[in-house]
């Protein structure tokens, strides 16, 4: 859920782009972290761990803990809490260490 009206911060920026979460389009604000757009769309499980397969969501929100890693445009282990969203980005739930292509 977005905080559109805020008593101190005023109005928030409107959503102007779309990103794709597991193939489904969701609205986003250009440049906001991918994780913020997902949270706004009600997505809480971002990845499943390698060992137990349990779901994980955002934890630190500032790029330290790596719990928000997802596959972004084919690149696994992308920290979605510090990676800006751009129009048309493909974001996938990551299972274990990720199945996408590696960094070149």
């Amino acid at each position: 859920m977005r905080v559109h009206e805020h008593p101190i911060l005023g109005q928030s920026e409107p959503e102007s782009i779309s990103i794709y979460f597991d193939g489904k389009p969701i609205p986003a604000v250009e440049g906001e972290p991918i994780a913020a757009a997902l949270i706004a769309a009600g997505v809480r499980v971002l990845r499943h761990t390698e060992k137990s397969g349990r779901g994980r969501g955002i934890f630190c929100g500032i790029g330290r803990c790596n719990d928000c890693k997802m596959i972004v445009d084919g690149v696994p282990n992308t920290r979605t809490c510090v990676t800006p969203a751009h129009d048309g980005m493909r974001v996938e739930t990551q299972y274990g260490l990720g199945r996408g292509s590696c960094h070149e």
Partner: protein
Amino acid sequence: MNKAQIAVIGAGPAGLSAALEAARAGAQVTVIDENRKPGGQLFKQIHKFFGSRQHQAGTRGFAIGQGLLRDCEELGVSVQLGYPALGIFPDGRVVFNTAQGVRSLFAQRIILATGANENNLYFEGSDLPGVMTAGAAQTMINEHRVLPGQRVLMVGTGNVGLIISYQLLQAGAEVVALVEAAPQIGGYAVHASKLRRAGVPIYTSRTIHRAIGEKTVEGVELVALNEHFQPVPGTGEILCADTVCMAVGLSPMVELAALAGCQMTHIPALGGTIPLHDKNLCTTNPMVYVAGDIAGVEEASTAIEEGRLAGIAAARSLGLGDDGRQQAVQERLLALRSGEFGAKRQQAKEDILRTFKEAMA
């Protein structure tokens, strides 16, 4: 940007203040920060600051941050963003990552203003999506303007827990309760009162026993604690909540100081392991200064003053600027570390000074 007289690592309140003072003294300063935006945690602080007028009491954190950035720009401080520092070599080389690969910056003095990491707790279900640090929730509501949950349990009642709980209310969430393992609230009464006036219960001698939920948090079980912080059998109570925020302290981020060979000390009252430093924030490595939470977890106001002091002192050690400013800053720091809450931190800081002198003797 491969050379600087003074390199500052971290563009939060301490780092920007250090850069400003060093630049004012005539030093050529480069600040690097891993984040895409400067300001550290200041821009998430939407509450009015406390203290005296000289500490900008009554001004909201983000306005203080805007002022620091404006001053940096006017003084020609180079602020380089998106560059995580990777290490420091004995010759003063700071190595950092960029999109184009690893780069170096040679500096005569390095001021570390890396801040602190949030602590966490382990309990059943603490890995469920919906369990997060209080700082994560604050970042989401105040910076990115999204609510990480609707019904929040806050664990910890230091100022971080109290202030972020109130900010969650301002963002439209419901805070179902705050729990505090100690028998009394940790933070300022004025923050706790605002929550109580809003009808939010604050339970002391109580903590979270487990987070309940299949895929994400759906509820929490609280438990009462005895005077030895042990759970009291039969006191379990289940609340409906979709989010658990942990505000259970911070630990200084000292990795770069350790790489630079700075000697450490352990001071629980200031967050744990801290680089030893003198009254001007110089570490046991004379090229390296520290300021802000890395020098002991306190508040943004003290981080700003420590940054100023480190900036002035680092410039002075290169023969730049004048001594006159140092004492005024030290006096303001003393004022910030007075009173019921400040005295303990002042004592801990004096312990660091004493240990520093012993280490250098």
